[in-house]
Structure formats: structure tokens, C-alpha cells
């Protein structure tokens, strides 16, 4: 009997020690703080119409973007669309991260994450809760769960509303999933995001953003109330019919980029594409502006 009890005691302490050890590893990085963004080539505020370069897009989303017009943001129903979870970190602005603690154990139940520009507060659940029903409403930020992998927080997000890969009409579907890694190195934070979209992407889209700790930075909440800003009926849906969007010609002409290259696709993401680029025909020059050459 004593031998059984001793064995039981040993196993109990071993499991208990393992449980505490795991918890310690899991809580070793504190992400809390306010951060400012290190500008990068990708966090453009106003992407050019027709610039699909460097994105693994397919023909379906090319048509979607070719039909798009920026007048969409004047539609009363779209005026207040915030940036969804996968796009919010792209926009320039501050970031605030704070934990939600269990009042008794101080274990982190969730991380809250808010980006300044058009972002809404997001929750990353750390308690292994199940996925919401497939019939539940989708949200801009989706449903996020987190798991520590060493000192990296891996976040998986599903259930997002339709969003955008680039704010020039390249849509991201509501069937996409987002995987992120939050990596803190002292005062710096790197967020790696991987978007998989079976509708509009042929390969995962991997992007990174860098932030630096900026104590005292205060974020203003994003509050938007839609109101009619243009004299259009609520049923107005602005778009271009296929083959009629002349704005698509401007990006290749103004930057001297071959038209084929501006259409993007997985191959335009890789260095080898530079060789192909050299073989492609140059785009037509931009039309001369009236009076531009006059003194």
C-alpha cells in the first residue's frame, strides 16, 4: 500500500511540476504596451489603382479589383468599414496591447490588441475555447486564439468578414484564415502574418510589420457613424464594367512597369521574376498633359 501511495505521490509531483513549468514557459513574454510602427515599404496608405504587384492573386480577384472604384468609400454602407484583423497592422499608426488576467491566478486569459488607424479592438483568447458555430455572424476581427510556441505567440484567426489584401479593390474573402506570430525582442515587436484565402490567393500571403515600444503613446478609439456624404441613393453601387476602367492604365504608364507585371500573381513575389521583367514589353507612355511643355 505504501509503495502504491509513494508512486502516486511521485507521479503527482511530477505532473504538477510539469504543469507549472509549462505555465511558466507560456507566460514568459509580456506583450503589454503601446507601440509605434516602423514604416515599411508595404504599409502604404494609398495604393495605386491597378497595382497588383508582388501578390499571389488569381484571375477572380483581378476582375474584382478591375471593377472596383474608390467611390466605394462614399457609399453610406461602406463609409465606416474598419480595417479587418489581417489589414489593420498594415496601416500606419500606433498599437496598444494589454492582457486580460484571471483575477485569482493572474493567468492571461486573453490578449487585447488595438491598432490606431481604422482598427477596432481585437481579442486573442488564450483559453482553448472552441470555435464559434459556422452559423454565427462573422466580424471584422474574426475569432482569434493564441498559443505560445517558445517565446512566439502564435495566433490563429477564423470567421473574418470579407476584407482586402490591398485597398485598391483586391478583396480578401470571408473564407480566408489568418495565422500570425507576435515576436517581441526587447523594445521591438515583429508581427508576421500569413493569410490563406482559397478564393482569391494561389499561395499564402506572408507579410511582416515592425513596431517599437513607445510608452505614453495614447490611442484614440475609432468611432465612425455613417452619414450621406454624396448625393446618391442608398442603392448606389459604383463599379466599372469589365474592360471599361481606364484608370488601370495609369499605374504601368506612370511608373514604366510592364502591364503584365502590374497584374501580380505568385511569380511576381520571387526574385527570379526580375529576369522575366526585363523581357516584357514596356507600357505605353502616359498621355502628355495639356500645356505641360509650355513655359
Amino acid at each position, binding site marked *: 500500500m505504501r509503495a502504491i*501511495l509513494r508512486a502516486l505521490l511521485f507521479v503527482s509531483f511530477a505532473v504538477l511540476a510539469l504543469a507549472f513549468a509549462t505555465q511558466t514557459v507560456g507566460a514568459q513574454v509580456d506583450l503589454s504596451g503601446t507601440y509605434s510602427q516602423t514604416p515599411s515599404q508595404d504599409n502604404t496608405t494609398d495604393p495605386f489603382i491597378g497595382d497588383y504587384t508582388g501578390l499571389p492573386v488569381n484571375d477572380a480577384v483581378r476582375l474584382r479589383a478591375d*471593377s472596383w472604384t474608390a467611390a466605394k468609400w462614399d457609399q453610406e454602407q461602406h463609409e465606416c468599414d474598419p480595417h479587418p484583423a489581417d489589414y489593420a497592422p498594415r496601416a500606419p499608426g500606433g498599437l496598444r496591447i494589454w492582457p486580460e488576467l484571471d483575477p485569482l491566478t493572474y493567468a492571461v486569459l486573453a490578449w487585447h490588441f488595438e491598432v490606431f488607424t481604422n482598427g477596432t479592438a481585437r481579442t486573442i483568447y488564450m483559453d482553448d475555447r472552441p470555435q464559434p458555430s459556422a452559423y454565427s455572424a462573422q466580424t471584422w476581427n474574426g475569432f482569434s486564439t493564441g498559443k505560445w510556441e517558445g517565446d512566439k505567440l502564435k495566433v490563429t484567426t477564423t470567421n473574418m468578414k470579407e476584407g482586402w489584401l490591398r485597398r485598391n479593390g483586391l478583396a480578401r474573402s470571408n473564407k480566408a484564415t489568418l495565422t500570425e506570430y507576435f515576436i517581441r525582442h526587447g523594445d521591438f515587436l515583429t508581427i508576421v502574418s500569413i493569410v490563406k484565402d482559397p478564393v482569391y490567393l494561389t499561395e499564402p500571403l506572408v507579410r511582416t510589420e515592425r513596431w517599437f515600444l513607445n510608452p505614453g503613446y495614447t490611442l484614440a478609439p475609432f468611432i465612425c457613424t455613417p452619414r450621406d456624404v454624396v448625393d446618391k441613393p442608398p442603392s448606389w453601387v459604383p463599379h466599372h464594367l469589365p474592360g471599361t476602367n481606364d484608370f488601370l492604365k495609369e499605374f504601368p504608364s506612370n511608373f514604366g512597369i510592364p502591364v503584365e507585371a502590374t497584374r501580380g500573381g505568385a511569380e511576381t513575389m520571387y526574385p527570379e521574376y526580375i529576369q522575366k521583367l526585363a523581357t516584357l514589353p514596356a507600357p505605353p507612355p502616359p498621355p502628355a498633359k495639356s500645356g505641360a511643355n509650355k513655359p
Partner: protein
Amino acid sequence: MTGTTAIFDRIVLIALALLSAAFDSAPARAQQDQPPDGSSIQLLHIQGRVHMLAGAGANITVQIGDNAVVLVDTGLARMSPQALAAIRSLSQKPIEFVINTSADADHTGGNHNLAQAGHFISGMGGERPGASVVSQIAVLDRMTASSDKDTAASPELWPTDTYDTDRWALFNDEAIVLEHPHAAHTDGDSIVFFRRSDVISAGDIFTPDRYPMIDTAKGGTINGEIDALNRLLDLMVPRADEEGGTYVIPGHGRVCDRAAVTNYRDMATIIRDRIEDLVKKGKSLDQVKASKPTLDYDGIYGANSGLWTTDMFIDAVYRSLSAASAKSSEKER
């Protein structure tokens, strides 16, 4: 038992208690809505007094009043036992009204089974057995059509009360307003607005898991469908940042707020405009299909098989617009 043994046993007990506590202290898991009997049915609370039953055919809306239950649509007949069990897990009060948003079998199949679980209090002649089954009058016309075997239904499924105006209302601890959009999914559609709960049951006017189901054989048209979607948007108010606020229970698929209905309306309008442009240019249906007017939305709403395919949607839009175009040409003559 010796003193040493007692201490040892106590240590073991404490260790086991600590072990148990360590695992118990894990944050509680969120409770997901579960079917009451483990069936494929899912029961979701939307907001206020309104719930949604999914998995019984078309979505069923369940509104719980203090003294009565109101249903919108009844799903398939064979799913009625599970649907009723789910409803009874919410309330034991009688089902007083069943509202049909269209004549489709997957919306009306459970009419008899579920209506029999209730009774109607008329206020004049007392109670009559079975709930009042309400629809726009065109639904009754379709279901009683002896000449049309496709739409005729067994008499026990027929609506017992109809309205032939554009609007009808009832009250079950909140105002419930029915509106009749003309020639949308069919010619007998109703949308049902639960005003205090701020939930709209839209029937097959809105199906976010597929292209709009325009049943031209039953009087549906693409322009009526878009008008109906715009009417839905008129009724909806988002809480903030295009999230929450008014929710819509669709005929099929997930619950949605205004942002999703907007995207759906945008899609329907853009595809309508593309096909209309081709119809005006005199293109045939095959030429329209070859131009792939739905390519950018097929991954979201399209299907190559099943009850409602992408081809069927393009057919319906084309026929609907061709008919409208022919009608306007006749007028011009």
C-alpha cells in the same frame, strides 16, 4: 494507522488536490450553442427574444414571447421532431403563429407538425387547435395550385391566414412587422422584422452561402431581388463601425449584420449590371456565360452542383433581364 502513515496519506491527498486544482483553474471554456439532442440542428441566440434554428432545412426563426412562441418558416417535415425539441428547450409556451417567407418546401415542410404543437387565440371565438400559419397570399396560391404539380403542396401544409397587402403586423411582446417585397426570390416573399429584438428574418431573399435564388418560375426577378436587398439595408442600423446592430437571419447560411448584406447587395448589383450590359448588346445566354460575369464571386457564392448552381443563377438573371427588356420594348412600340 500510524501517525507517519496518516501524514503521508495527507500529503498524497494534498498533492492530488493541488493537481486537480491546477487543471480546474484553466479558464472556463466558452459554451457554444449546442443542439439539444445531439442532432445536426444548431440553436443560436441572436439577440433579444429571437433565436435561430439551423440544420432543419431552411433556417427557422424562433421568437419567444411571455405567453406564446412565433416561428418564421418550419424547415423540412422530417426534421420537425428535432426542431420541436429545440424550440421546447427554449419555451414550453404554445406556438401561436407560424410565418412562411415563401412557398418553398424547405421553408414550409414542417408547417403541419409545428403548427399542431400550438394553438391560435383569436380573441373572438376563443382558441382553435393549431397555430395560425401566415403568409403573403401568393404563397397560398402557389401551394394550392392544382395545375402546377411542382408548387402544389399537401393541404395540411397550407397557410391558414394570408395578407394581400404590402405590410402586415402582429405583436408578441414586441412588434413583428411583415413586409412583402415584390417579385424578388418569388412573388410571395415576406421579410419579418422583430422590432425590439432588432432582428430580421429574410427568407430566401438573402442567402449568404449561395447566389440569390431567383425563382423565375414563381415570379422572381433580379431587379426585385436587388430592391428587396436594398429594403433590408434600409431597415438595418449597424451598432458601430459596420458591426452588430440589426442582424438578419437568412433563408440559408449564417447570421449576418449589415456589412454582409451590403456585400451581397453589391455583388448582386454588379453582376446584374454586367449581364444587363451584355443583354443590351444582344448577346445570347451562351455568350453571356462564356464571358464569365460571375468569375470574381464564384469562390464565395458559386456552386457547380446542388440545388442552386452558378449556371442556374446566370440563367435566372439573363431570363429576368431579357423579359424586362422585351417588356420595355413592347411599351415603346
